[in-house]
């Protein structure tokens, strides 16, 4: 079944993204990793739209929305990161320690 390979790909991407979000120190990379996770979802959706149970075009529509929203989300993320960078001169997540753990 071809869908399983897509699913596996998506799962791997999702896990890589999650791993990156949790471990990476560079804030930009963290944002990339989030994007990776969201794109894993897109792969899933599109794969299901073609091969899923009751495949239909809804998956495509959903992924369009996902793309849009993810773009907005990451745009805001980077905007905040820039604001942060201008004050802190660093994109290292570990430097963000003003708020105590």
């Amino acid at each position: 079944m071809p869908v399983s390979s897509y699913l596996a790909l998506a799962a791997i991407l999702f896990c890589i993204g999650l791993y990156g979000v949790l471990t990476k120190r560079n804030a930009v990379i963290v944002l990339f990793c989030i994007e990776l996770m969201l794109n894993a979802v897109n792969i899933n959706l599109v794969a299901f739209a073609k091969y899923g149970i009751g495949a239909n075009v809804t998956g495509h529509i959903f992924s369009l929305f996902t793309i849009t929203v993810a773009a907005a989300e990451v745009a805001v993320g980077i905007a905040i990161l820039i604001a942060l960078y201008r004050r802190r001169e660093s994109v290292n997540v570990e430097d963000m320690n003003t708020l105590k753990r």
Partner: protein
Amino acid sequence: MEYTNHYVVLAIFFLLAIALPIVAWTIGRLLRPSKPYEAKLLPYESGIDPYQQSWLQFNVRYYMFALLFVIFDVETVFLYPWAVAYDVLRSDIGLFILLEMGIFVFLLIIGLIYAWKKKVLEWI
């Protein structure tokens, strides 16, 4: 699977496009000289020796444009399907489809006006 062929062609174009520079450089490597020395490998700064890396912070203005780009680029994600299906939808529900997109675009235009008023669009 009749559309596979089209994508195969696209893939061929891609591969070809990648192959061309590689081939060209490989040939070039055989032909061209290579005599690097320090001054040659310095970045060109109109004759002044560079004293720092050029990887600096650059104006945030660039990011503003990038953001605006994202907004309107994403808008087209919805505009294109709408435009393609316009005739079909119009015959069903009439001009409402236009109104709908009008609302959508209107909100984006508010965004543009916002950026305009906030002087984001001015390049200093």
